[in-house]
């Protein structure tokens, strides 16, 4: 990898410019929901998230009752603007840059005079997060001025469930795969080749193939809706890749380490625990991150094996459900999505190096 070194990074504005545009394109979607998750429900409904940046907006300067003696069915003149009721409802812009707008109905309305002014919508709040995490009832101000009582979501529960699924579903396959990888790499036994062929053949098998029979087994064993069911499923689906990656790594460790350990009378088990595992930490870490992100972000496996049991549902299931049931409550959806993303993003940015290494080692998964 170190073969090709760019001797000097020549600055080309064209290259940096295109790259900058692409970065913008790739990050704006995430920035959008991140910012929105801190805005009030009222702000989200009445303006785009970019309104937090300075921009020109029609702002109310004065408000007054409807002048007396107007022909409401014909053409009226109010504050220097001329038009019918319908036009006033849409707002009429006067030559001096003001806008006269009729709020409400014909009889009981009022008149607003607006001007284009520089503003920023910076009414930030943490209430969205409270609301999605705690699950109490909240009062939400609506665009039409009324107040709505809203039931929150209980995502903190789902967060714990996601952890309870993802941690063992990461550790268990790694442990089993590490033993198997050592066995394949350093031991000779009948069936070794055949078993290894099975591992490799299963690398790209789509997991859809397994859902139906496994679900039948689980129903017989009364396992549906338990963490164990999901762990074992993720273990089964992750094991081929884990075994293959770790085999490649452990197989590449210098042979003389093992031989000298054997001469000292160590058993395979001792060598594995004391020597091979510590030496394999980079490979283990790579796969661990890979598997953790995969399990944490998984939706299908959880959907099938956890199903409709609300108290064991993981984050992805709850978010998907929220999109269905509260599709327009963007203050909740954005905060909820961010709650589900925060841990993978931390893992990703802090351990990116290992993650990339894992990807480079092998990236096909069923």
């Amino acid at each position, binding site marked *: 990898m170190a073969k090709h070194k760019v001797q000097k990074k020549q600055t080309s504005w064209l290259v*940096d410019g295109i790259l900058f545009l692409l970065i913008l394109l790739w990050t704006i979607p995430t920035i959008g*929901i991140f910012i929105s998750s801190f805005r009030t429900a009222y702000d989200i409904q009445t303006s785009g998230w*970019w309104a937090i940046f300075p921009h020109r907006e029609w702002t109310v300067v004065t408000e007054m009752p409807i002048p007396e003696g107007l022909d409401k069915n014909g053409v009226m003149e109010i504050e220097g603007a001329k038009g019918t009721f319908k036009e006033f409802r849409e707002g009429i812009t006067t030559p001096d840059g003001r806008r006269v707008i009729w709020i409400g109905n014909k009889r009981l309305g009022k008149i607003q005079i607006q001007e284009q002014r520089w503003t920023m919508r910076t009414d930030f709040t943490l209430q969205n997060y409270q609301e999605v995490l705690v699950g109490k009832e909240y009062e939400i101000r609506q665009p039409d001025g009324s107040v709505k009582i809203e039931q929150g979501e209980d995502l903190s529960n789902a967060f714990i469930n996601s952890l309870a699924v993802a941690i063992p579903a990461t550790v268990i396959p790694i442990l089993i795969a590490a033993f198997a990888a050592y066995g394949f790499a350093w031991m000779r036994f009948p069936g070794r080749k055949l078993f290894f062929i099975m591992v490799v053949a299963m690398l790209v*098998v789509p997991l859809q193939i397994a859902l139906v029979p496994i679900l039948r087994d689980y129903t017989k064993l009364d396992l549906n809706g338990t963490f*164990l069911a999901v762990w074992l499923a993720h273990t089964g689906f992750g094991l081929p890749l884990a075994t293959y990656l770790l085999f490649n790594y452990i197989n590449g460790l210098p042979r003389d380490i093992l031989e000298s350990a054997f001469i000292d009378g160590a058993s395979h*088990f001792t060598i594995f625990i004391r020597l091979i595992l510590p030496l394999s930490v980079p490979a283990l870490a790579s796969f661990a991150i890979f598997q953790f992100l995969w399990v944490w972000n998984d939706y299908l496996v959880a959907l099938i094996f956890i199903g409709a049991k609300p108290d064991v549902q993981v984050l992805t299931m709850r978010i998907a459900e929220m999109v269905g049931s509260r599709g327009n409550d963007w203050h909740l959806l954005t905060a909820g999505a961010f709650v589900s993303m925060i841990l993978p993003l931390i893992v990703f940015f802090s351990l990116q190096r290992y993650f990339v290494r894992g990807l480079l080692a092998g*990236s096909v998964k069923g």
Partner: protein
Amino acid sequence: MEQTEPRSSARRVWRWFITNILRILLAIIVPLITFIVLWQGFIFLRDSEAPKVLVAGVAIVWGVGGVAALFFVTNWLVEQLPDVWVRHLQPYIFVGPAIVIIFWYLALPAIRTFIISLYNRDSSQFVGLQNYVAVFTERFMMEAFRNTMLWILIGATFSVVFGLLIAVLADRSRFEKLAKSLIFMPMAISMVGASVIWKFIYAVRDPSDPQIGLLNAIVVALGGEPKAWIQLVQPWNNLFLIIILIWLQTGFAMVIFSAAIKGIPAELLEAARVDGANEVQIFFKIMIPYIMGTIITVTTTIVIFAMKIFDIVIVMTGGQFGTEVIATQFYRQYFTNRDFGLGSAIAIVLLVAVIPVMIYNLRQIRNEEAF
């Protein structure tokens, strides 16, 4: 010790017989016992009323500890036996659990699903290949195949092209690290989360209200009419879903390509420059051919990924508005319509589609010296 030949060979057969029995015991019975203990523990935990965090904590310790204990205990038991036995049995402690689990969760289900696919909707009657006929003739399946082809063709092509473009640009930029890290970031986001992100971008509201979705806001600012992008204009609404896949997978392609590009020998590029090749020629005539193997691998991976796309479609449209794909049809037939035969046949079609890759992978390991 005087021993006649026949007796010693009888003994050998006897020992061979015993070791094999023990191997089978180790590979199957021991994981089975662990499984039963774990399972009973979980039934207990599931029905308990303890606080959530406690149950989750106990579950984690129980699960991880149980698996670790399995290895320690069986190994300890085997190491009590004479050396010969240890040598014969120990490998099965190491590889046994992995083999049993992979067999139970992947190899065997492939066969079981195939058998289910030959039966009718509730598996009560053998119908031969009738379900496969349905898979390739039913209208809703044709739509699913068409859409999945769109996902594969457009999704994979753009991910690879963007990935390659960004990898090359980043290689020449001072902001390489930052750029790669930010473009790669969507890899950490779930498809469900990504769907929420993009649904917000495509959000549409009444033309008289301010648009809060970025895309419609831009359209309106340019004087257009706001549109419901993911519902109208079929089949092009699929494109708006496929963009999410491109957004997610470009980072993956970029990282792999970036490593491949850095592996191109500097002398090769230098020589081309000395011969008067410009950067575009270098890209097409040297870089692309040099990393062709990587391009094929990455494309294959993304194609397989796109073929099984499920979460994005379910969250964005639920399969409505003509966006159904193969994996969502599998789910719908199996879990909504309870048509086990047809659902299984769709799963088998997915399996058959990856068989060439499977064969390629097997060829690869045969070439490696270890086997």
